[in-house]
């Protein structure tokens, strides 16, 4: 085993309190980020589910020919951003109205021609539910001569889009706040731990150690502290996830890439913080 690694591992044996506390601190700092990741990921999923209901409804003139509508239906269905197109005849519409609008039942019963129009309902693909796509499709539909009016729940949809923007902004602000705080906490923890060992660093210099030789074990120690802390954070987050899932409500686990990224970041931070601190104490003595 090379010297640096041997020494780095020995540090955990020599000052278990110090290295234990620092790893715990790293774990807690990243746990905060992990919790936030869990929350963000699930909020994002929830918004996506709401967005699924984005649909555009084109009301069709009573005098439109069924064939002409069917052609348009196929055209629309072929568009890359469209997920699904469904046709509702005038009878379908009456059925739905009867079921869903009981207060008009009497009126509708008393009328002998069906006053409701046929319609076409279009759903967009998950990645394509943007405001631009919706507007473009609405314009395209309106252009068909047999279309009387196009509706797409403008108000509601605008709210969903706003929600998405606010959500993204909030996640951005909170996320970067948490991330910065986490990074600084990790860095500070490692730096305090090295502060407690500054005299050792100075003795090493006095005995003829090159800076790179001294730095090696400390960097590795930072790496290990960061790594242990990140793994601890991942474990803590997972325990929280499982607890919430089985006792409160159904949440989804963070994507694996986030977890991996978080662990890598923790380890990297440990190294960086060590580097900064060790350099500081190498400049003395």
């Amino acid at each position, binding site marked *: 085993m090379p*010297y640096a690694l041997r020494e780095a591992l020995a540090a955990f044996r020599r000052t278990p309190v110090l290295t234990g506390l620092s790893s715990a601190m790293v774990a807690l700092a990243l746990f905060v980020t992990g919790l936030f990741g869990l929350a963000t990921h699930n909020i994002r999923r929830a918004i996506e589910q709401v967005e699924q209901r984005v649909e555009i409804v084109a009301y069709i003139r009573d005098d439109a020919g069924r064939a002409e509508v069917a052609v348009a239906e196929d055209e629309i269905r072929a568009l890359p951003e469209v997920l699904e197109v469904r046709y509702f005849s005038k009878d379908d519409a009456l059925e739905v109205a009867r079921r869903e609008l009981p207060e008009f039942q009497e009126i509708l019963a008393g009328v002998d021609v069906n006053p409701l129009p046929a319609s076409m309902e279009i759903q967009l693909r998950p990645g394509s539910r943007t405001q631009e796509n919706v507007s473009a499709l609405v314009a395209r539909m309106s252009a068909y001569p047999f279309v009387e009016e196009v509706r797409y729940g403008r108000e509601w949809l605008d709210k969903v889009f706003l929600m998405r923007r606010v959500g993204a902004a909030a996640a951005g602000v909170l996320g970067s706040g948490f991330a910065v705080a986490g990074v600084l906490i990790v860095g500070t923890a490692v730096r305090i731990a090295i502060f407690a060992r500054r005299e050792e660093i100075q003795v*090493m*210099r*006095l005995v*003829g*150690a090159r800076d790179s*030789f001294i730095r090696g074990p400390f960097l590795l120690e930072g790496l290990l502290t960061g790594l242990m802390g990140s793994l601890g954070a991942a474990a803590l987050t997972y325990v929280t996830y499982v607890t919430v899932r089985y006792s409160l409500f159904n949440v989804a686990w963070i994507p694996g890439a986030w977890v991996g990224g978080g662990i890598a970041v923790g380890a990297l931070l440990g190294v960086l913080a060590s580097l900064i601190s060790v350099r500081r104490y190498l400049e003395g003595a």
Partner: protein
Amino acid sequence: MIKLTNVSKEYPRRGLALTDVSFHVRKGEFVFLTGHSGAGKTSTLRLIHMAERPTSGEVRVSGFSSERTRDSEIWKLRRKVGFVFQDFRLLPHRTASENVAFALEVTGAPRREVRMRVQRLLTQVGLSAKAEAYVHELSGGEQQRVAIARALATEPLVLLADEPTGNLDEFATRGIIDLFRDINRLGMVVVTATHDLGLVRSYPDARVMEMKEGTIVYDSARLE
């Protein structure tokens, strides 16, 4: 080997600790540096070790000049100059042998050789039985001997020993100084700072320099 030319050292809040110190120690010399407490012995040794830079004047040690050697190069000097610190400066949480080994590991010596040399050194200072004891488990004199063994580990050209026997009894003291003399005969320059005038007197062929208030007030080499 060691040459100080008009060296002065001023500490930020405390004024001049050394004033215009000049001396030259040649290869093979064995020097005692004496003087009252606070006379400037440790300060002089620290300048030679380049743990401090002089405020004015020049310190030259084995080709390294205090004026030209960069901080990042000092490790090269340190491997040629062993230092027994007055306050030992052992690495805590390590055993006696780990402390001595450290000075060798630093130089990239192979592990087997390190082990053998450490064992020999600890035996020479009379501590082979305590090799695996942690620093905090050693008595004052035992710690001092670990510090001595460490300073000798790299077979330095120069040994700076700051009060190396302050915690040792007469018998152990003689053993250590005799060890220094033996290695000195093989070519190593030894500069020992000490208060122990009895010790100084018992090595009448050694060069003696006496300091007082930051200057050299007596140098037996200058009398010859």
